[in-house]
């Protein structure tokens, strides 16, 4: 049986505080390819009551180190590196 495709999700700043993680491997549920915009609910369900929902509301996504303009039109097939990009505070 072929193994379930996974993506690596990177957490920084408030997202890492909420999840307690810097990164994790997530199995992509069916139907696949999986919409990036559906990843929010999947992650929120994994960390209930941690404030992740609020963090994700104000965040953007990157896939394979490219910022995503439209998560509804972006799909994940497995093997991607996805990052939660919280509001930035460099400088």
């Amino acid at each position: 049986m072929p193994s379930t495709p996974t993506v690596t999700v990177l957490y920084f700043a408030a997202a890492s505080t909420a999840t307690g993680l810097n990164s994790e491997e997530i199995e992509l549920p069916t139907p696949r390819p999986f919409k990036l915009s559906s990843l929010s609910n999947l992650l929120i369900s994994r960390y209930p009551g941690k404030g992740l929902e609020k963090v994700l509301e104000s965040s953007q996504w990157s896939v394979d180190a490219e910022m995503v303009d439209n998560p509804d039109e972006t799909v994940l097939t497995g093997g991607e590196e996805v990052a939660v990009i919280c509001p930035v505070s460099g400088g």
Partner: protein
Amino acid sequence: MSQWPPASVEAREELIEGIAVLTYNALNTESITREVADARAGATAIFIGTTRNSFKGKVVTRLDYQAYSKLAIKTITSIILEAHQKFSRSLHQTPDTLVPPIIRSAVYHRLGTVPVGEPSIVIAVSSPHRKESFQACEYILERIKEDAQIWKREFYEGEKEEDAEWKANTAP
């Protein structure tokens, strides 16, 4: 969780127009300024961003910076190129001159713990005439604050570590 995220690593990208660096080491303004030195330059603008000791009456004890380095270094590089494009005409120059209005830009951003009072970012820009280096230096700083995938956490005196606040440069 390890102290610094594994994706928050040192990074360095050199281009003809300049250099972008993310480093866990203290920033040396003099050596960064030398990176943009050029005999054709009549001006070098330098911005040094340092960590402040207070926030809304609270005493800041330290600041931690982390980056998604792979992406942040690309963002900073494209901001440097953007600045060199944007300030492409100097009032002092005739259009056929061979010296570009902005010669070189260097951006160094520190990662990890930055003690209060030390530089977290140094930007140096050289140009034949002063106006363009001032403008480009400010432009690069503002664009980095908007877009570069770097995050700052402030720790306050008398408060628990887990209450330390992740900052945001723009209101969500």
